[in-house]
């Protein structure tokens, strides 16, 4: 039976101190091969010091059609931002 290699999402840490960041995807038979292929595909020019691979089918994403109800609760809470508060000019270091 013919079966395609599954798809993997690739995340790269470009240097210590930074987050892993999604860079793209690739096909591989298993996780080990996905890391090796990601090394050859996404770090040919020293773009990374660490690689995460996740099989694409295991990623759950929010639905863009639900974006409004999902993110709306944060929209009207301006008091969460420092600019909401006035501090007199003579008060410094704040």
């Amino acid at each position, binding site marked *: 039976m013919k079966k395609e290699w599954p798809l993997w999402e690739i995340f790269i840490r470009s240097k210590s101190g930074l987050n892993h960041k999604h860079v*793209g995807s*690739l096909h591989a038979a298993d996780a080990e091969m996905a890391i090796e292929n990601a090394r050859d595909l996404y770090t040919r020019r020293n773009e990374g010091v660490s690689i995460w691979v996740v099989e694409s089918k295991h990623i759950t994403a929010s639905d863009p059609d639900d974006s409004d109800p999902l993110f709306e609760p944060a929209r009207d809470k301006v008091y969460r931002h420092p600019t909401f508060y006035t501090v007199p000019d003579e008060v410094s270091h704040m």
Partner: protein
Amino acid sequence: MTSLNFEAIFQSKIDDEVKIEPKDWMPDAYRKTLIRQISQHAHSEIVGMLPEGNWITRAPSLRRKLILLAKVQDEAGHGLYLYSAAETLGADRDDLVQQLLTGKAKYSSIFNYPTLNWADIGAIGWLVDGAAITNQVMLTRTSYGPYARAMVRICKEESFHQRQGYELMMAMAFGSPEQKSMAQDALNRWWWPALMMFGPHDAESTHSDQALKWKIKRKSNDELRQNFVDVTVPQAEYLGLTVPDPDLCWNEERGRYDFGKINWDEFWNVVKGNGPCNRQRIQARTKAYEDGAWVREAAMAHAEKKEQRRMQPEAASKAA
């Protein structure tokens, strides 16, 4: 909401320069156009390895061989970035490969020309990659997010391709008289096919208007071609080589170069499969695909066996 509303929202996002992402609503025709364009682009990168691969074993020095290997490996990488961008639209990788092998999908016609002398490797980097960059820089701003991101990555890498090509051309053009004539011969054969890479004139281009409205493309074929001619002619002059176009001249009024008529009969003939190397290219890709089949199957079987052992370590050890 009606689909008309969806379409209006979609177009207003495009007009506001908001990128479209994989799960966003998009018109079917937008999705189809992108799958066609991105996969053709991917196929071009993959087939594009063949004319240059032809010279890897015959590169004149270790330095040139290392450079050429790195460049061809980049092209494999570019093909893979693009295939995965097409897959975010729901395309299946194996289907895309089949479309290339059966001739249903096209790839850039330039790769159906042979690489006859070593200077061709320089001319490809300088002219073919140069023309590709002109097009790809525009595509870093294309409206579909995954395609735009793949293009940013590709453009960063392509710059090395063009510069190594021009450096090779300098070595040949400033070398012995024989080397210089090889460089001129390469320019003679690659100039017009490079101009054809931008596609038919705007008036004859079937997909252009809609692609511009959707900001898949952001400049027209003729505009990109003119930009390429304007930057490339002075580069040829520096090399002391002659561009094979008797009608080429600087137009003071326009501040741009005028250039001769493109032989569109040749272009369509190559697109239709009758270029010098069309059959050879597809044969090479088919052979690679078929010869690799057992490796792909064996790797999958091995992965499944490992996974089974991991899930049931006891059953596996009893069986053994």
